[in-house]
């Protein structure tokens, strides 16, 4: 009797319970959907804005590099070539193509078709291949950022003259060049091969990428051994006493400290006290490793904790010392977890700006850093600096730099997943 009663009760509640489950499932789907939608919108927005940054407008000009016009002779040294006024060479070619442009103001417009960095581009090409000197050659020179924007369509030609940056006269010049097929759109290698610049058409991300790599390397070299050693000691060797409890609490607290505090610490200790150079990846790396230490320690400890005790007991039972047990059995088994924690810590460090603000890495640096003591900046700071620049061309560069940063993060996370899959053991 009572049994029957229970069954009917259960049957009655069944529908309600299924409904609850379905509602829960649906809300789960909805949250994933919303999160995914935000991500797609964000990435699509950045991606669309970034696209023009990967294309560069170049203008082909026939330049007279004869010995007379460069005032050189076949025996000229590198230093003499460096002194040549290549800007005049370019301007002469422009005047030759547009002989009707006579007024001073119009000439200024004409010269501004070509980027102000083109003279150095030309100089570097000539220095690389000295055989160019003596003849007339066609060169693809960087177009000015306004011309670039017009060709890409970022500036609308159809707007009234007063509402656009490029005036009618300049457009008429560009149209002549277009008719002669002198304007071409190329993949923007400069963006990946040069350092920062104040001209959008010359600005590149390589300096920031190298800065990020050096900084992350220093962070990894410092934080990985220290954090893993600390985690192993705390999990396997440390006695249970108040002192160790105190240390544990502190490590957990450290993980919650705002990152700017580490920057202040870095400024006070490493720059002011140890007088390390400002803006250098070494200081950035040390500061970021302080920040990532607790993350790696906590992740490593839980990885070590997850190794089954039977493994340790078996090793000890067969006569291994404590140290042999740890380094031969526990550590390899915990390695995938430790690596995942480390890479997540590194990814966090890669995107960090606040602590680097204090140690002078928010700086304009053109030269690509060669060592960890050279002044450098990092990817997220480059994004910040470009976002704050008045020139319109930096808008697309900003988005492109964000894409590069996201690319790095994806690579690091993929590496974490790969390492975990490769070394993971199931028991």
């Amino acid at each position, binding site marked *: 009797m009572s049994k029957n009663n229970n069954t009917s009760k259960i049957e009655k509640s069944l529908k309600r319970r299924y409904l609850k489950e379905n509602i829960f499932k649906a809300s789960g789907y909805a949250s994933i959907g919303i999160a995914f939608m935000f991500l797609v919108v964000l990435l699509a927005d950045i991606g669309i804005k970034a696209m023009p940054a990967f294309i560069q407008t170049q203008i082909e000009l026939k330049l007279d590099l004869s010995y007379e016009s460069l005032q050189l002779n076949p025996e000229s040294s590198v230093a003499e070539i460096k002194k040549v006024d290549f800007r005049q060479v370019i301007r002469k070619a422009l005047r030759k193509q547009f002989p009707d442009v006579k007024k001073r103001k119009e000439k200024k417009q004409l010269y501004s078709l070509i980027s102000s960095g083109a003279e150095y581009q030309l100089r570097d090409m000539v220095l690389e291949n000295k055989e160019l000197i003596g003849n007339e050659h066609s060169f693809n020179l960087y177009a000015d950022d306004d011309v670039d924007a017009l060709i890409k369509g970022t500036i609308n030609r159809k707007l009234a003259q007063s509402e656009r940056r490029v005036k009618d006269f300049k457009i008429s010049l560009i149209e002549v060049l277009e008719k002669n097929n002198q304007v071409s759109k190329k993949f923007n290698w400069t963006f990946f091969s040069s350092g920062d610049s*104040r001209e959008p058409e010359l600005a590149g991300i390589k300096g920031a990428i190298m800065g990020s790599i050096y900084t992350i390397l220093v962070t990894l070299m410092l934080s990985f051994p220290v954090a893993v050693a600390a985690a192993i000691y705390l999990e396997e060797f440390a006695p249970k006493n108040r002192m160790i409890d105190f240390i544990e609490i502190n490590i957990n607290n450290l993980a919650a400290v705002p990152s700017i505090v580490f920057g202040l610490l870095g400024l006070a200790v490493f720059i002011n006290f140890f007088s390390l150079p400002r803006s250098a990846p070494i200081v950035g790396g040390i500061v970021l490793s302080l920040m990532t230490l607790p993350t790696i320690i906590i992740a490593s400890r839980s990885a070590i904790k997850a190794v089954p005790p039977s493994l340790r007991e078996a090793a000890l039972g067969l006569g291994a010392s404590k140290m042999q047990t740890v380094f031969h059995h526990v550590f390899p088994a915990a390695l995938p977890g430790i690596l995942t924690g480390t890479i997540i810590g590194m990814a966090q460090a890669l995107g960090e700006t606040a602590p680097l603000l204090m140690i002078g890495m928010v700086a304009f*640096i053109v030269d690509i850093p060669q060592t960890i003591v050279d002044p450098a900046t990092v990817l997220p700071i480059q994004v910040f600096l470009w976002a704050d620049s008045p*020139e319109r061309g930096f808008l697309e560069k900003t988005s492109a730099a964000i894409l590069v940063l996201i690319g790095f993060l994806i690579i690091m996370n993929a590496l974490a997943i790969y390492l975990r899959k490769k070394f993971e053991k199931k028991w």
Partner: protein
Amino acid sequence: MKNLKTLIAIAALTTSLTALSAGRDYISVVGSSTVYPFATVVAEKFGKSTDFKTPKIESTGTGGGMKLFCKSIDINTADMTNASRRMKSSEFKMCQENGVKGIVEVLIGYDGIVVANDIKSHTFALTRKDLFLALAKEVPSEKDGELIVNPNKTWHDVRAELPNVKIEVLGPPPTSGTRDAFVELAMEGGCKQFPWIKSTKKKDKTKYKSICHTIREDGAYIEAGENDNLIIQKLQKNPDALGIFGFSFLDQNSDLVKGAAIDGSAPEFESIADGSYPVSRPLYFYVKKAHVGKIPGMSEFLEEFTSHKAMGEEGYLIDKGLIPLDEEKYQKVFSDVKNLSNLSL
């Protein structure tokens, strides 16, 4: 074991690095984010056209730059600092006390602060008094000596000739030098046109400052962060709003936004240069004399920065939105730099 080894490695690294950093071979510049866009252009040109390394320019803000600059005479401290206002006497004293004795002051030009809105929207012709009445927290009532909480909701309330749109101004936060300059030049400029407020200045300077310098907090003035590009984007979305930012951003975005005339003078290159546009400020940089000759390229960099082709009337800095000095002032700056004349305040 591992721990110990790392520690030793760090210690060894530190000692070797300290030795390394002593021989710095690039110029280090700190300071104002307003001067940053100009200093960086010169630095880049300098790096590309000479065999010296490109100077490193940090954007630390004027005050932060002064602190770093005046810290000591040590070769590892900054060689120059940019400033969007003149060095204060307190900062000069700090420098002197820390042994930074020889300082060269270089006035590079002017920067205008503009009030602008969307190009398709109303055209504003404002006065400094309008700006004060629209943006101050408390404004004078009809009775002399009495202040009331700012009742103005629309520009029409401020002055009958102005368009009837809600007062909504996007501007920089208090940490910004642009904000300081705007408050000092525009707000205070309008504020002291009330005779009784002007007379308070002598009696009670703090009160005078709090009347003239306090911006309203009821939502009419919106702090939009330090990023001027963001303000311009927001202006396009909201045609009724006005934005406050530097002239170089107006110059670069003249197809999107237009500047309001202030006291009858439009924010144009010529009017800022001749001083008729009232909201403009001088830009400086300061040089540590003791480092000239020790850091390679210092005197050459100074020469490039103060050359005619950089900050002269047709210089490349002018293309970037800097307002040039008149010939007389330029000659003085030029000779000051040539002789490395000491600054005295």
